């Protein structure tokens, strides 16, 4: 057990901190490389909208903004201060909906994204893997061949195009699903059966696009993994022992092929998360993706910073959780 903690858990936690360190540092450096001074951009924007601003007021505003962006002091001091605010959970006020704190906006959007992602990832991962494992055992089956061809066709399509096609087909030409949002505008958010049904109906298209692309990927991955595992000695042995095909398929083939697929999930989370953001933009789903679009439109620099940082921490944490779950499936990691 101690060895397991030392050799497995501690390095994972180290890697987790490393991801956050790299991510946060990038987020800190990028604005400072930009040719545009965010303070000046903000000031000129205010000057264009507000007509009567005195030079003193502008100077005052400039100082306040410099302080707020953490741009005062040497780069090193700025960097430390950046971490300090981050650790306190202080992401500053949103500029477009001043003075609402960025964290409040994020808190509102996060559950939507989280719910959508979790559902879509679970469904696509589970179904993709089951179908992929079955595929290697029933290669000639026409249904499986169809899934195979569809997977190959869907897999490479970028999230945005996929979402757009689904939107055009199922909300525009055959309007069986609502066009946009998670619930009709004006509807009250409440915990009721009918509200839940509305949300689910609204979530189907965004979830479906995520699921379809993910499913294709997991299917193809699992298919090639199982086709290798099928010739492993322990599978040939189990066949020789006359075990039922389902036992072999689930306990021998799939059980072992799942291990790399769990690792694959951890490694792809960043990509999948990015996909979810795009889905939300297309479907006007009120999660972090839509928030990103609004922030871009409204030139809300602090909000974009907040979204970026939360994404990094969120994805890294999910990966860490997966890393912690992994040993439950692989005894070799448990007793090394």
């Amino acid at each position, binding site marked *: 057990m*101690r*060895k397991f903690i*030392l*050799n497995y858990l501690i390095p994972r936690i180290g890697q987790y901190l490393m991801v956050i360190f790299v991510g946060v540092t990038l987020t800190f450096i990028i604005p400072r490389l930009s040719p545009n001074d965010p303070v000046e951009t903000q000031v000129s924007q205010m000057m264009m909208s507000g007509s009567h601003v005195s030079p003193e007021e502008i100077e005052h505003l400039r100082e306040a903004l410099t302080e707020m962006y953490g741009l005062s002091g040497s780069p090193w001091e700025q960097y430390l201060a950046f971490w300090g605010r981050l650790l306190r959970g202080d992401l500053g006020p949103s500029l477009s909906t001043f003075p609402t704190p960025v964290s409040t906006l994020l808190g509102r959007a996060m559950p939507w994204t989280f719910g959508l992602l979790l559902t879509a990832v679970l469904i696509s991962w589970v179904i993709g893997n089951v179908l992929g494992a079955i595929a290697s055992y029933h290669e000639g089956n026409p249904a499986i061949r169809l899934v195979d061809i569809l997977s190959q066709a869907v897999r490479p399509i970028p999230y945005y195009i996929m979402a757009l096609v689904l939107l055009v087909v199922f909300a525009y030409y055959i309007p069986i699903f609502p066009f946009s949002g998670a619930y009709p505008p004006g509807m009250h958010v409440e915990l009721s059966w009918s509200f839940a049904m509305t949300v689910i109906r609204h979530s189907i298209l965004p979830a479906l696009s995520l699921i379809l692309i993910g499913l294709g990927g997991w299917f193809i991955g699992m298919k090639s993994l199982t086709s290798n595992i099928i010739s492993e000695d322990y599978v040939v042995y189990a066949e020789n022992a006359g075990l039922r095909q389902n036992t072999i398929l689930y306990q021998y083939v799939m059980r072992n092929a799942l291990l790399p697929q769990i690792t694959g999930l951890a490694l792809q989370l960043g990509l999948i998360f990015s996909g979810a953001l795009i889905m939300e933009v297309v479907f006007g789903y009120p999660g972090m993706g839509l928030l990103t679009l609004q922030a871009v439109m409204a030139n809300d620099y602090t909000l974009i910073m907040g979204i970026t940082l939360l994404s990094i921490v969120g994805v890294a944490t999910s990966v860490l959780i997966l890393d912690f779950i992994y040993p439950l499936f692989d005894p070799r990691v448990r007793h090394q």
Partner: protein
Amino acid sequence: MSENEKLLDVQNVMVSFHVGGWIGGGRLAAVNNVSFALEAAKPEIFTLAGESGSGKTTLARLLLHDLDPTTGKILFEGRDLATIKKRKDVMEFMRKVQPVFQNPFDTFSPLSHVEDYLFDTAVNFGLAPNRRSAAPVVDEALHQVGLSLDEVSQRYPHELSGGQIQRVSVARALIPQPRLILADEPVSMVDASLRMSIVNLFRKLRDEQEVSVIYITHDLATAYYISDRIAIMLRGSVVESGSVEAVLDRPRHPYTQLLQESVPKPAAADREQWAKEIKLGALEITEYRQVGCKYASRCPHVMDICRTADPPDLEVDGRMVKCYLYTNDAKQGVERSAHLEDYKTI
């Protein structure tokens, strides 16, 4: 100086690896206080024999200068291998010491023609100024192993048999005209009908080319057939060494005795001895960790002292044995108990 007369001189070499976690792990001696030497004047075939996990492969890596010992020294022609660092020195060392590997089908890249490696060796070690003029050198080396350049030219490894590749591999090693060839299980993956051709080749090299060979193997029968001297390894230590006839015909260490007796004899006449019941060893790692003699947990003659300290190297009957059974104390102990028996009968 006596060292100058030695081709290879291995002096109290030890290699330890760190095992376990960052904290709380331990060190294991994969090679433990091993010494032996090859004479420069008299080429010979020296066998390092042992089962998997005996440390023979680690020792092979040491001798090829792939790895430096944790303590101890290896001298080749009087020069400490640890001082060979510069590319020029490494090349000079490799010119004189060449390896032959175990798996013929992995010795050459499956995507390359086998003769590429022979030409490379000839050019890199300065036996020919360029590829074109290297052909006679390569052909000559191939002739020494009973092949010709025409036979292997433009062939991929999979187009040749294991025996053929292994001979090409020996030919490659011969190109720089080495003084020592280190062959790590060179026949264990070669078919039975071709095995002897490789084994005989090493004999021929010793007799005709004056090349010394270190033959690393778990196969005592081929070891007996070709080698002059043998060292039996167990969990990193040499437990018995001497002339192959002395060690294998009349083994003294209980482990060598077990090993020798466990080799199945290819004759249907005498099955009894092999069929005697035996006790199998514990997990490798526990035997490595064992204090004292590593064979103590399995040895039928085990004494208390065996579990407390490493047995000394003893000269017994014309060979070295690392065993307490042959110390004076033990002999006396045996005599004393015999003596007591005498008293009882009186």
